[in-house]
Structure formats: C-alpha cells, structure tokens
C-alpha cells in the first residue's frame, strides 16, 4: 500500500479546474519531488491529501484512508504548507504550543523542534517580525512536531539561504533514510534534484510524468539545433515524421526525436542549405522546462508540431 495515494483527483473552483483527474502514489523511504510550474495544482493536491479541501471527484488517501479518518494526525502526517500561515502576533513558541497541546504532545517536544530548526533564540519573539527563512523553519518545526511517518512540504526551500537549503536537504534525506515518506513540492527542479529519488511532474492540474530522478535524467535523448534557409519548410518536413520541433529565442530550430543524420538527409532531399546542425544535450533544468512546456515564447503553431 502506498503511504500517500491520489486517485483520479479532480478539484474545481467554479469554472477553473485546479487539479484534473490526477493519480499518483508516494512511497516510504524516499524523497518524492512534486514538481510543476506555479499554478499547476501542487498546493491544491497537497491540501486534498491533508483533508483541508474536498475533492470535486476522486480521492486523496493517507495510508489507504481518507485523511479525515486519521486517528493520530500529527504523528501520521506533518505538513508545512505556506510560510505565511501564522498569526503575526503570536510567538513562534506559542504557535507550536497551540499545536502540541491540541495533539497531546509534551511541551518538551516544542523545545526540541525549536532547537532542531535552530529557532530557539527567536522562539519568544512574535512571528510578525520573522524573516521568510525563519518562517519556513517554524513551519518545518510544526511539521516535525509529532515525529510523523509522512512529511508533506510545500515549497519549503522558498526564502532559505544556501546554507538553509543544504540543511533542509540533509534533513529530508535523513527523514527518508529513517523510512519516512517525504513529499516535497517545488517549481524549481534544481531545488529538489539533489534530494529527490522520485519525481512527480504536473502541469495544468494533470500528471505529466511520474519517474525516478535517474530515469528522468537518462530519458534525455538529446536534441539538435538547426539553422538553415527556409527553416519553416524544414520544420514542416520534420513535423511530418516523428520529430518534435520548436524554435529557440534566436529563431533556430530545436529538434527532438530525429538524429543529426536524419535531419541532414531530409534537408538535402528538400534542397535546403544547412547553416548549423548541432546535436545537444540539455541540462536537467532545461529538460524540466521542456517537459513542463514552459517554452511559452514559442508560438503554439510551431511548437510541438509533431506531438
């Protein structure tokens, strides 16, 4: 059984579809990166997994059960949803005490997690005066309060300095190594690339792919940058085959799914002179943007012609 499971989840707000028939599973013992551009439906999905909103259709399950049926929620799931969800007038320590007392967790644990996130010194101050990084750490402290088997963290790296990022990475890795389930969202792949074992990519509320980081990196077949006379004609020709064609910002063609040889031969048969034919491998980040379809500058007519 998957620790977290989303099954045909759909969430509609009026006419907007935030999450659209999304299904995936998250397993224990590894860090799962939940990736997608802003507005992809990551937060909505996480809120559904936490029982904070009702799915329009489908379900979100924790240990095979709807989240509202959790018998010991804070020891089952710890979540850090947004770094702003604090009463500005309450101290960090009081915020944690409120949660601890509701969950029957001893107050000594509050001091422990404050120590853990290195916030002991500021714990007595009102959260209104905290920096974004401090709020992130307080949110994390709240998530860790019940030593939960599962962690759900929404963009936890926002506002952290490089040191903080590293600290967060180590923490998440340690949590996973202890056999816990870790689901961490981000809109920037590099934030989770060094941490995540598994990736769930969503866009427009839909699943783009669920893959391991290793597969994701390996799946990059590379692409070919092409400049030529009568580029449009060449693009059309390529589009008729299996290749995917788009334009980069300089107007060159980026071809995926056709080798340099194939492109050269096609150009010859069309009588098109090539000015550049350069096989490339994309970086992880480029690959991510590619999969996410964030090349929004490309006119749709030319993008994904062969898809």
């Amino acid at each position, binding site marked *: 059984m998957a620790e977290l499971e989303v099954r045909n989840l759909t969430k509609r707000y009026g006419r907007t579809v935030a999450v659209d028939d999304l299904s995936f599973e998250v397993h224990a013992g590894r860090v799962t990166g939940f990736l997608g551009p802003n507005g992809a439906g990551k937060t909505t999905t996480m809120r559904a997994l936490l029982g904070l909103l009702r799915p329009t259709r489908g379900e979100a399950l924790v240990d095979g059960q709807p989240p509202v049926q*959790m018998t010991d929620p804070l020891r089952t799931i710890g979540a850090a949803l947004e770094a702003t969800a604090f009463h500005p007038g309450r101290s960090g320590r009081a915020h944690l005490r*409120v949660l601890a007392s509701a969950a029957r967790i001893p107050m000594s644990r509050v001091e422990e997690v404050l120590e853990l996130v290195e916030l002991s010194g500021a714990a007595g101050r009102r959260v209104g005066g905290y920096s974004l990084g401090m709020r992130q750490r307080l949110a994390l402290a709240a998530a860790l309060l019940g030593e939960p088997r599962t962690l759900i963290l929404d963009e936890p790296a926002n506002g952290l300095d490089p040191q903080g990022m590293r600290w967060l990475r180590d923490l998440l890795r340690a949590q996973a190594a202890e056999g816990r389930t870790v689901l961490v969202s981000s809109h920037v792949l590099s934030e989770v690339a060094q941490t995540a074992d598994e990736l769930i990519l969503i866009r427009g509320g839909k699943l783009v792919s669920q893959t391991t980081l290793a597969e994701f990196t390996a799946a990059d077949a590379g692409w070919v940058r092409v400049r030529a006379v009568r580029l449009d004609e060449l693009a059309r020709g390529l589009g008729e085959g299996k290749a995917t064609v788009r334009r980069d910002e300089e107007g060159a063609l980026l071809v995926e799914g056709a080798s340099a040889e194939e492109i050269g031969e096609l150009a010859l048969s069309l009588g098109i002179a090539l000015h550049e034919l350069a096989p490339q491998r994309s970086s992880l980040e480029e690959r991510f943007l590619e999969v996410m379809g964030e090349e929004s500058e490309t006119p749709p007519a030319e993008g994904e012609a062969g898809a």
Partner: protein
Amino acid sequence: MNLLRSEWIKLWSVRTTWVMLGIGLLAEALFAGLYVGFAPLEEIGQLEDTMTGVGLLLVLVLVLGVLVVTAEFRHGTASSTFLVTPRRWPVLVAKLAATFGVGLLAGLAFVLVNGGLALPLLSSRGGSLPSASDAASVYAGVVVSLGLICAFGFGIGAVVRNQVAAIIAAIAALFIVSALPELLPGSVGDYFPAQAIGSLHGSSEGDGSLGQVAGGLVLTAWTLGLFAIGTVLVCRRDVGE
C-alpha cells in the same frame, strides 16, 4: 479537553485578548468611578446605574469572540488547526467553550472592578447600597451575558468568516437589529439578542422584560443556532486558497 487547552493558549498568546479586555475593564473603572464619584446621588438608583462600562465591555468581548474564528482564516492558521484535528467539529466545540469561558472571565473581572471600586465609592458618598441578593442576581446576569455574547460573536464569525464583515455583522446584530423590535407588534422584540441581554441584566425598564432566566435562554438559543450553522459551514468549506 486538549483542544480546549489549545484554544485557551491561542487566546492568551496574542496581545489582542489582553488589550481588549484591559480596555474594557479600565473603561469601567474610569466611567464608573467618574459617574459614581460625581453624579448626583439621587440619580444613582440601582446597581445597574454604576455599571456604565458594561456596554463597551460587551462590544469588546463580542468582537473578541468573532476574532477567535476569523483570525484563523485571515492568517491561515486554520490550516494547521485542522491538520492537527482533521475532524473539524470538535475544534468548533472547543472554541465555543473557550469563548464562553473568556466571556465569563471578563464578566468576573468586571464584577471585581465594579464591586471593588464603584460600590465602595458609592457607600463613601453615603449612597444606598443594593441588597446582597439584588447585587448577586445583577452580577450573575452580567457575567453570564458576557460569556454568552462572546460565544455569540464566535458563532457569527464561524458563519461569516471574513473578519471585517463578521465584526460589522456582529455589531449590527446587537445595535441595528435591536432598533427593529420597536416596530414589531407584541413581545416579539423581547426575543432579539440585545433585548435578551437587557433581560439578562435584570433591567425592568425599556428593553428586556423577559426576566433573567428567560433572557439567558433566549441568548443561549441565538448563540447555539449560530454555532450550529457556523459548524456546518466550517466543516463543509475548503480551508485555504
């Protein structure tokens, strides 16, 4: 019980609670002191006349009750609250108990201020003190009305949820709607919240002629009605976004 404790910590860990109750009690000390100290003795006929600050405290406690729920949605703490307790209605029951408790506490503090300041002052000027039984029943009414009005505010907050709208609605429910009964036939008006408070305070003139117990029951009914609607709404609605 753990949820009530959590709500109790929530209430007292923000300055709002302290400031609002502090202002209410200071105002009573000041108003009552001035009035009892300087008004012509013959104007001070009843114990009620010495409680000049009770109206302000009622409003403050009402708003405090509203904030107990609207602040959670405004600042997004509702997410963590309902994360710890995914089944939401027990949280609302705890909030109901906490608001009632805070209101009662405010009422007791008010009685201390009034009894410890206004009455000795009155007696030092040679005024006639109310009988012990009269004082006890008026004070009891005040304490209970403050407890109920705080819970009443909480009920409105749960229904309306937007902080500003809820505060306006709560104040309107007491003051604007309370003008309506004069236009209504018979004793229908006695069952409005403001009139019920009047009855609860044992005032015999003007608003409130139901008697203390009936007034208390009417205000309780209003509070529980709002609480029921608010609970259904909070349990159904999504949290966040």
